[in-house]
């Protein structure tokens, strides 16, 4: 009996050892499988995170400056992730294309100016462009072709803005240096005043107003040439980009008519840009005065 008991005991231990070994092996395989899947899942999650970033990257191209020598625009990041702008794809309307590298980081909710990039431009150029980010997203301006032609601001069909403020148009009976500027809407009759007007340059770059031809014509409302009065621009004057100043005109060439004379005032302005010899002409506006 004791021998039989011993035999059963030995086989029980052996089978127990094998059972444990098999269990450990199965557990190892399952654990290994789990860890492999976990590692893959982590990589897939990282991929999903990258995709999420890509889908949430949003940029808007704003305020493309016309008249610039190189591309000059603003980018607003209205997405929820930082963007790294790395490439500029540029195409002129005539089909000439070029690719340029950029290195601009822009945080979410922020605006950044990108200036002096791309090919050299002239004021007659029309072009299309696209920026690409490191995540592979691309963004274009809202219009298909951007014109580099300079246009006046604020919707007025002229390059300068005359504000029609009470003191924007003034006269002085006394010449330089003892000017006594007064609003010129009602200048004194039988006088030969000096004039000045305040105008704003709405171009995005400096403009030189030329004295040689710019002048102020006062035409009686009977429109007879003999009743015209003239006041010329005193000297050529540079008006800085997006700013304003007074333009000074010479003394009237002859006296105004008596009190109660009504005049249309035409102000001719001839100007050029600081970086170009081309001369343009325009009017600032048609004013009216009557003498008192």
């Amino acid at each position, binding site marked *: 009996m004791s*021998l039989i008991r011993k035999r059963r005991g030995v086989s029980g231990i*052996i089978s127990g050892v094998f059972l444990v070994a098999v269990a450990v*092996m199965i557990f190892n*395989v399952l654990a290994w499988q789990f860890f492999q899947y976990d590692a893959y899942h982590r990589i897939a999650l990282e991929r999903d995170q990258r995709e999420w970033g890509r889908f949430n990257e949003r940029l808007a191209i704003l305020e493309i400056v016309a008249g610039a020598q190189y591309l000059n625009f603003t980018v607003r990041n209205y997405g929820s992730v930082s963007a790294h702008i790395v*490439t500029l794809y540029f*195409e002129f309307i005539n089909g000439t294309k070029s690719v340029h590298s950029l290195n601009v980081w822009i945080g979410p909710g922020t605006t950044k100016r990108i200036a002096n990039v791309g090919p050299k431009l002239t004021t007659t150029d029309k072009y299309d462009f696209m920026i*690409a980010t490191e*995540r*592979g997203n691309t963004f274009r301006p809202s219009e298909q072709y951007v014109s580099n032609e300079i246009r006046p601001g604020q919707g007025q069909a002229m390059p300068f803005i005359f504000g029609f403020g009470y003191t924007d148009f003034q006269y002085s009976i006394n010449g330089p240096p003892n000017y006594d500027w007064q609003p010129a809407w009602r200048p004194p009759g039988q006088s030969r005043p000096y004039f000045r007007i305040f105008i704003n340059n709405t171009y995005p770059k400096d403009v030189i107003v030329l004295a040689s031809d710019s002048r102020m014509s006062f035409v009686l409302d009977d429109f007879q040439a003999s009743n015209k009065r003239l006041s010329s621009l005193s000297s050529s004057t540079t008006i800085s980009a997006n700013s304003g100043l007074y333009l000074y005109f010479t003394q009237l060439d002859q006296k105004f008519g008596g009190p109660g004379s009504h005049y249309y005032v035409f102000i001719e302005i001839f100007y050029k840009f600081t970086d170009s010899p081309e001369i343009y002409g325009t009017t600032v506006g048609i004013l009216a005065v009557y003498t008192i």
Partner: protein
Amino acid sequence: MKQKAAVSTIVATILMINMAIVMGGIMIAWAMGLIGSYQGGTQIQYMLMDERVQEAITVECVWFESGPPKKITFFVRNIGVREAKLTTLYVNGTSYTPNGTWPYTLTVGSRVTLLVNYTWTSGAIYLITIATTRGNKAHGEWTP
């Protein structure tokens, strides 16, 4: 008879225990080999899946150029975290070989310009697909 039977019972028991241990060992060794080869295969499969998930490309821009000859220029960027080997380029389902080095290995974050002579038609829609050796694709439709 009794004495012989007693001796043979002990010997037989020892022999059976030894045989059981040896056979069990063989079985375990066999099973471990089987598991090892399974693990090896699975590991390669997971490795390939990992690499494929880490790889990503995009067709950033396509230019249709008038020529002559007419050409299509593709700008492809690697937006993944693993280098990508561009191996096939399709235009409307037909495979083309771009000028220059091909297949092309695109490092992480970099961009490549691919040029294909192709007589395109203005206004037509072109489905462009670029595939990598890992089986990832970037595709999109462009119109000249």
